[in-house]
């Protein structure tokens, strides 16, 4: 009995509600409002979700040097391995990116830093070993400073001549030898 009574009561309420809605609205009115809502939706901003972290996770923040770095010509200052080189490029002085010109001696000490390779998007440890023993080559002088620090952190300063331990402290040019991949 109770079930029958409840069913009738609900039926009555819903009928009353539907009739009131039908008398107060028109089909065209509903359509126009829905259409207006659809058209206006893009004009309002979406929910304020912070996407900055997701973006940072996929794209590393690049330095000015990294934005302009290239991987094809190691005789130009913007070659990716030269991110913190200060001096003449041995590639322009008869040597190579990791070899000294004939008649010069590679330094045993060096400036070590990390450079980002845009081709494979990995960071590599690069050692800027100086070639020593003859006067400066003076070709292709570059001064990039990604990660370089002032002389109060001498091991991270790229203005130092690293010819310690060689027979002469005379600086000729700098190489950019690849040490390995930085983890």
């Amino acid at each position: 009995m109770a079930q029958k009574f409840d069913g009738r009561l609900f039926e009555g309420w819903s009928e009353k509600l539907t009739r009131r809605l039908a008398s107060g609205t028109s089909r065209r009115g509903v359509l126009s409002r829905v259409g207006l809502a659809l058209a206006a939706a893009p004009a309002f901003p979406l929910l304020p979700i912070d996407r900055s972290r997701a973006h940072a996770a996929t794209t590393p923040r690049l330095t000015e040097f990294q934005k302009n770095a290239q991987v094809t010509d190691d005789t130009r200052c913007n070659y990716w391995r030269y991110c913190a080189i200060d001096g003449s490029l041995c590639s322009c002085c008869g040597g190579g990116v990791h070899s000294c010109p004939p008649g010069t001696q590679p330094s045993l000490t060096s400036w070590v830093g990390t450079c980002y390779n845009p081709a494979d998007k990995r960071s590599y440890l690069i050692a800027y070993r100086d070639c020593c023993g003859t006067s400066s080559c003076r070709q292709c002088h570059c001064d990039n400073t990604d990660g370089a620090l002032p002389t109060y952190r001498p091991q991270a300063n790229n203005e130092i001549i690293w010819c310690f331990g060689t027979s002469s402290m005379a600086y000729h040019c700098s190489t950019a030898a690849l040490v390995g991949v930085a983890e």
Partner: protein
Amino acid sequence: MTAPWRAVKRFPIAGMLAGLLCVAACPVARAADNSVVEQRAVTFNHAQTNYMLHCGGCHGTLGLSPPHSVPLLRGQAGWLVCDPQGRAYVDGLPNVTRASLSDADLADVLNFVIFTLGASPGSAHAAPFTAREVSAMRAAPESTVPLHLRRQQAVERIIKVCGAPKSLLDYKPM
């Protein structure tokens, strides 16, 4: 091997053109060689990478340095922890304590230098460095004894007590 040379001999203009092409392509070819080196590059773990960045410039990426100018680490650094005085010398090295690394990361670098790169009979029974030890050595005031003298005393002692090699005395600071 002989065919291309014959071709250059017979057609000198072709040879000259090839030469010009080489000049134009040389930087690209060199950079391409570089990429081969990059593909074969070894990957270093966190402690090794920190060693390269914070120590490897002077001490050498392989731990080999000009021994008169910079103390040699490879196969030698481990001797320093065979004796408490030697270990205290390591704990008080200014460029170690002031390295821009966390206590845990610095402990990892010290363990790499002493027990892997500089592994020697002297380090065989020594305890590894911990973040706690690093924290304590950073909190301790720097010794007023000149660093060169501290090294000389520590090295002379480990040569006498542990039988460390006399080549540790090769370092002659100016």
